[in-house]
Structures are given as C-alpha cells and as structure tokens.
C-alpha cells in the first residue's frame, strides 16, 4: 500500500513538472511569434512560426537532421543536469565537448581506431576537462563556474592550435579548411548507422548515436535515483554540511561529479563528430561550440531530469532545425535561438507554473469531491 502511495505521489509530481514545461514552451512559442511579427509582421505566421514548427517533420531527411543533432544535445544536457543535481553548475560543458571532439577526431583521423574506442577517447578527455574544475573546487574552494569558463577557452585554443598546426596539422584538410571528413579517410571510425540512414532519406549522419544517448540518459537516471552513489551526490548537492556530518566524503564527490559531467559532454562530442554531422573548423576559433551551452537550456527545460532531457533536447533540436529552414528573405535562422531563449527564460518561472497547476488540480479535486458528496 505504501508503495502505491509513493508511486501515485511521484507520478503526479512528474505530471505537474511536465505540464509546467509544456506551459513554458507554449508561452515561449507565442512570444516567439510576437518577435517574428515585430521583425516582419506580414510573414510572421505562415513563413515564420509555422516553418519552424513544421520543417522538422516535413521530410525524412529533416527528421534525420533533428535526430542527429538531438543525440549530442542529450549528452551535454545530461552533463549540465547531472552537475546541477549535485549542487554544481557545469558551465564548462562546451570546453569538455571541445576536448571530446579532439579525442574522437584524433583517434579516428590519425590512429584510425574503431568508433567505440574513439568514443571512449572522447569520454576520457571530456572527463579530464571536467575533473580539473572539480579539483579546484574541492581542494581550494574556487568556484567551479570561474575555473570552468577559463578552461573552456584554454581547451578551445589548445585544440584549435593542435588541429590547425599552421596549416600542416595531421587532422587538417587544407582543401576544406576543416578536419578531414571521416567518410573519406576513416570510414571504420564512423558510428554505424544500422539502417538508420536508410530510414531517414539516406542521410549518412543518422546513426545509432541517438540510442547511445538514450542509454546514457537511462544510466544517469539509475545512478542518481537508485544507487548509494547517487544518494551521496544528491545529499552533497542539497546540503553539504549534512553530508559531511553523515560521513560522506564531499571533496571526493565534487570531483567525481564534475568528472562524470565532463565525460558525458565528451561523449556528446564523440556522437556528433563520429556520426559526421559536421567537421571541426579550427579556424573559426572565436566561438565555443554552441552544443555545450545549449546543454544548459536542455537541462533547464527538463528540470535536470535525465529522462526529461531526452525530450527537451529533441524539442530544442527540432525548433533549431526548423529555424535553419526559414526563408532568408524574411528571417535569419538565429530566430530559433531567440525562441529557445524565451522558452528557457520562462523556465525560470516554471515553479510559478507548477504552483498554479497544483492549485488548479486541487480546486478540481475539491469540486469533484463536493459533487460526489452531494450525490450521496
């Protein structure tokens, strides 16, 4: 009986969270429409919002593009969300992702290793880049945000420098000004498609990456909710003092938590580049990969829930792909980012929405109870 109670309690809470996120999305889209209208009122709906909402499903190829972009986003979302759950803000996902990309591409292009080893290398380098801010936080009490931001840039310039190597880097293809295409130089390092690309209009970048990401999401969920390790990590996140009092080694947990977060982001990069969604361009060196920062959005929209992250990532990728299909005659593709930003901004209010929804549910229940009472 007790089990049942906790189950129904849990699911109603989950329902409220999901409903609150959906309210955020709806209002975000409505405000997005307003923004579109301000830029170009005439085309705001038909050529604007509708394109963003429809394009992702319009052709198998578009669907494939959405999926190919979802997989790495799930990973960076998990990375940020995992750290959130343990009381840390991993703003370094972009840097960890960068290192992960380097690890994956080096093992693929230079060493011609099979894809799973490349993925492992991505994971290891991401973990390393996550561990460093963790160590600083645990032993010197330096805020992880500051260290992580610095290591984002250190990582980016280092990776770019090695890859470019003044035009002679082993991974640098002079003709495309990017890293060599895996399809040409090391097809064995590509994540297998297992028929996925045939399903999605022969788009080669659709691979089993999406399933790998979902498996990771489930694993993170299990670790956080079912294991003693997750129990300790969350205890540290909620109340460091109480965790210490209970004999939990909080320093170790901070480092482990950041290491795992880094590993997840690193895998994200591996999934992206080993699926050949794109090549790395070491000369566009002023920007960190957006995938890392979008992970923050994805985690926020999902309230850091690992399973929720799958869906929030899918949604964000979906409207981002939609954004790229906007006619450049009327809008720029960044408009999708604006809409995502509005939605994320609204997520800050999700607690408010949650309370509203809860009050509504309660009022509903009371009135049905009152009705029942009247009948009896």
């Amino acid at each position, binding site marked *: 009986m*007790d*089990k049942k*109670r*906790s189950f129904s*309690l849990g699911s109603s809470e989950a329902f409220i969270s999901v409903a609150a996120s959906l309210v955020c999305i709806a209002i975000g889209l409505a405000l997005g429409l307003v923004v579109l209208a301000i830029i170009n009122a005439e085309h705001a709906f038909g050529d604007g919002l509708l394109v963003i909402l429809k394009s992702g499903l319009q052709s198998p190829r578009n669907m494939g593009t959405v999926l190919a972009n979802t997989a790495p986003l799930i990973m960076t979302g998990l990375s940020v969300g995992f750290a959130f759950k343990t009381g840390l803000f991993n703003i370094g996902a972009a840097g960890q992702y960068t290192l992960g990309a380097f690890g994956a591409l080096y093992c693929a292009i230079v060493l011609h290793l099979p894809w799973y080893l490349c993925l492992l290398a991505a994971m290891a380098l991401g973990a390393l880049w996550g561990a460093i801010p963790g160590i600083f936080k645990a032993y010197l009490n330096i805020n992880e945000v500051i260290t992580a931001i610095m290591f984002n840039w250190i990582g980016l310039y280092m990776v770019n420098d090695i890859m470019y190597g003044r035009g002679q880097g082993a991974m640098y293809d002079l003709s495309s000004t990017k890293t060599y295409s895996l399809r040409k130089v090391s097809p064995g390092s590509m994540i297998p498609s297992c028929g996925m690309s045939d399903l999605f209009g022969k788009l080669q970048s659709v691979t089993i990456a999406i399933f790998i990401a979902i498996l990771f999401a489930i694993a993170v969920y299990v670790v956080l909710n*079912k*294991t*003693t*390790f997750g*129990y300790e990590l*969350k*205890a540290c996140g*909620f*109340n460091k*003092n*109480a*965790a*210490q*009092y*209970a*004999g939990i080694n909080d320093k170790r947990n901070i480092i482990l938590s950041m290491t795992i977060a880094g590993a997840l982001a690193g895998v994200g990069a591996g999934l992206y580049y080993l699926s050949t969604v794109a090549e790395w361009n070491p000369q566009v060196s002023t920007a960190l990969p957006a995938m890392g920062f979008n992970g923050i959005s994805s985690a926020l929209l999902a309230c850091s829930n690992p399973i929720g992250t799958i869906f929030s990532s899918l949604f964000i990728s979906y409207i981002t792909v939609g954004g790229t299909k906007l006619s450049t005659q009327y809008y720029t593709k960044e408009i999708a980012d604006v809409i995502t930003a509005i939605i994320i901004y609204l997520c800050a209010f999700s607690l408010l929405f949650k309370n509203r929804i809860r009050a509504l549910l*309660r009022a509903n229940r009371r009135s049905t109870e009152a009705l029942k009472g009247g009948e009896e």
Partner: protein
Amino acid sequence: MSEYIIEMLNITKEFPGIIANDQITLQLKKGEIHALLGENGAGKSTLMSVLFGLYQPEKGEIRKNGETVRIKDPNDANALGIGMVHQHFKLVEVFSVLDNIILGVEPAQGPLGVLQKAEARKKVLELSERYGLKVDPDAMVEDITVGMQQRTEILKMLYRDNEVLIFDEPTAVLTPQEIDELMKIMKGLAAEGKSILFITHKLDEIKAVADRCTVLRKGRCIGTVDVATTSKEELSEMMVGRKVQLVMDKQPIEPGESVLTVQNLTVKGRRNAKALVNDVSFNVRRGEIVCIAGIDGNGQSELVYALTGLMKSDKGKIYLNGQDVTHASIRERSAGMSHIPEDRHKHGLVLDYTLEDNLVLKRYFKPPFSHRGFLNFAEIRRYANGLIERFDVRSGQGATTLARSMSGGNQQKAIIAREIDMGNDLLIAVQPTRGLDVGAIEYIRKELLAQRDAGKAVLLVSLELDEVLEVPDRILVMYEGAIVGELDPRYTTAKELGLYMAGAQRNV
C-alpha cells in the same frame, strides 16, 4: 466603543491536508498583554499570520475597535496599527539601526525625495527614551547583539505608531538577562497603552508578564484564561492535553567503565591562533549523563566538532571505547558514536530529502539498505516506518514527507530516532531541546535518560539552566574554552552555576 481593540472571531484557515486554525476566537483588550500558548504546530503562527495579512482565512472575521476589517497584506495590517516582531528578525544586516527602523517609511522632502534623517533620528531617540529601548542608532545591525536587534525590531513598530504589537516567540534567541529586560519593556509598552500579543510556549514567561492567555491545541481553541488565577500545571495541561511531568524521575545508577576519554584536547581557531578549546580533559562513563554547561560561544560547539570529527583537533587525544579516534574520519567514529547536532537544519537533516532518506542518512551504505551500491527502497521504507512508529514522528505523508515540511519538534524526533537506533555506546546530544515545546522537551529528556539507564554514555551540551540542573549526573562548566568547574547537580543551585558560567568561580 468596544472593549476590545482586536477581535478575531471564528477564524478558520486550511492548508492541504490540515486545518491549521479551526474556528478560533481571540479577543485582545486595549492595554493588555495577551499570551498565545500552544505547542509547535498548534496553529499560533498561522493565526498571527492571518492577523498580519500574510494568509487569508477561509472563514471568520477580524474586527478592530468593533468594526469589521479586511487585512489583505502586511501593508493593510500596518495601516491598522498592527506590527509584528518575527521570530527570525527581518533586518538588513549591513544597514544601521536607524536605517532599518525607517526603511519603507523614510521621511523625505521635495520632488527628489531628499532623506530627512535628522527628523527620524529625533523620533527614534524619543521613542527609545520613552520605552527604555536602549539602542545605538548608528551601529550596523550585523555588529550588535541579538537583544539590541530585537529592540530595533520593536522600535520599528513604534516608529510606525503601531498600537497592536505581536511578538512571535521573542525569547527563544535571548540570554536570561535579556529576557528579563524584554519582560520589563513589554510591561512598559502595555502601561503606555499598547496592546500586546505574545506568542510563546514558555509558561514562566506567561506567568511573568501576561494578563490573559489563550491556549491553542491542534488548531483548536482550548480556552482563554486569566493568568493570575491559573497555575502553570493547569496551563501546561491545557496546552498538551494531558498531565506533563516536568520534573524527571531519575534512579541512581553506578556508572561503569569509561566510553569517551578526552585528554588535553586543544582546538585552535582558523583565523587567529587563539584556542577555542583549551586543554580540555574529561571522560564519560557507561550509565551516566555528563552535561557541558556554559554561556553560548565558550567553546562548546568546537569541542563537539572536534569530538565528532567535523573539525580537526590541534592537540590532545580522544579515545572511544579505549580506541584512539583522534584522527579517525567521521564515518569511522560514527561506528561507535551517535551525534544529535546543534543545528538540525545545517547538519542534522537534508531538508530536501524525504523523511525516510533522512532516517538512513548514516546507514544507507550498509546492508540491508543497499546491496552492491544499489539502494533497497523496500527495506528503507520498512525501516523508516518502524522508526516513525516507535518514536512517534508525525508528518503529513509519513515516510515520504519532505523533511523541510515537518515541524521542528518532529524533525528533531527524526534525528533522535536515527541516532539512538544506531545503538552506539556514546550519544552526544547538543542542545537537543532547543526551540521545542514542553511535550517534545519532556519526551527528549526521557529518551536521554532511557539511554543512560540502558548503560550508554551520554554527553549533553546545553545552554538552558533548568536542563543543566535537571537532566545530568555530572556537570562540567566551560568558560573561554576551558573546563572551569565540575559540579554535582544534586548539590548545585542555579546561582552557583551562574557564577561558574560567568567565569567568576572555578574548582578545577
């Protein structure tokens, strides 16, 4: 004109799953001190929040001077002359006393709103003189004592010309001397025509200042009585609903071998080299309760931190059951040592965890609660339900209640249940009854005694004089980090104890 300045008639306030106030009527006469007595969770704070406009009641009406009023928010309350001193002060720490008092009603002149502080200062000084509320208007709030912070809060109400003053458990944070002074101030305010509502669960204070007393129990109004003609026993029975045994029934026991032995323990502060715990030696034996007494801040907290491993000790040895644990980790120590911490929110509980998760906070990693790193939820639930029943921990949703949403008394019970059930030979209890009501205090003291009778060693740290004299078998008094006295509670008076605590006398 009505005899009453404020009347709350048949107030009903519901929260999901609980009726916090059920048809409560409270009538406040002009110029009286009216106590509102009840255990934690009886509905006192809810009722006052209704009066102060923080909650809207589902039923009932509020009258001021016989006229029905609606109080939608604290601004309405303020406009009606109702002011409140909250249990946790609402002061800006980095502002001066004067700035805090005028905050929100700053006197200003001209279209630019130039502050007229001189005027405000004059009024504050006048008020402070008239009511004997000594404050330094230019001192920063963060630098002044808790007593002066409270006087600042009272001045805030007076500055706004409030006539109805609500005091929410005002003595919980004060020293005995400060309490005496507050009592005097309250009487002075009443004599000047202010009407006071005084929320408390301390019977002595009610007897000392209140004219009448309304007693709440479990959201219901038990009655309003005249304080002068009602005994403390009658009041406590009204509050708890049964006879309360405030004096403990203690059987003499011959203590056994030493469980905790402390030798020359020294703990230094992190910032300066001053010793917070200075060369302390003592032991606690099986079957005895040893109490560390002293005024707050004389090294008791640091001593406990060093004993439990939360702080490193600089010198000396700690032996637990004969084993040297001076450098052992917290987890190693907790194999033989239970610890009811001083601050249940900071250390004792993970407030965002459920009750059951908190009940296994020190054992989750052991079988049967986990197996190969995976938690066994069914076992945790079964264990938690057992403890909840045995220790009568009450909460809205049983084992799955968030610790944050539980009352202070029940949070403390949960910690006690967890620590006692570990079955360790040593129990360290730091201010285990702080901020709790009579019923909970009685319960906790009995549990400590039961531990002693079961042959465990109990180290109690307390700031409450009656607890120090009532509960232990031996008293050690700490002053400026050192133990200055060892006393036998049977032959010690409160006055004598006070001399040791103030450092005026020593015998070791």
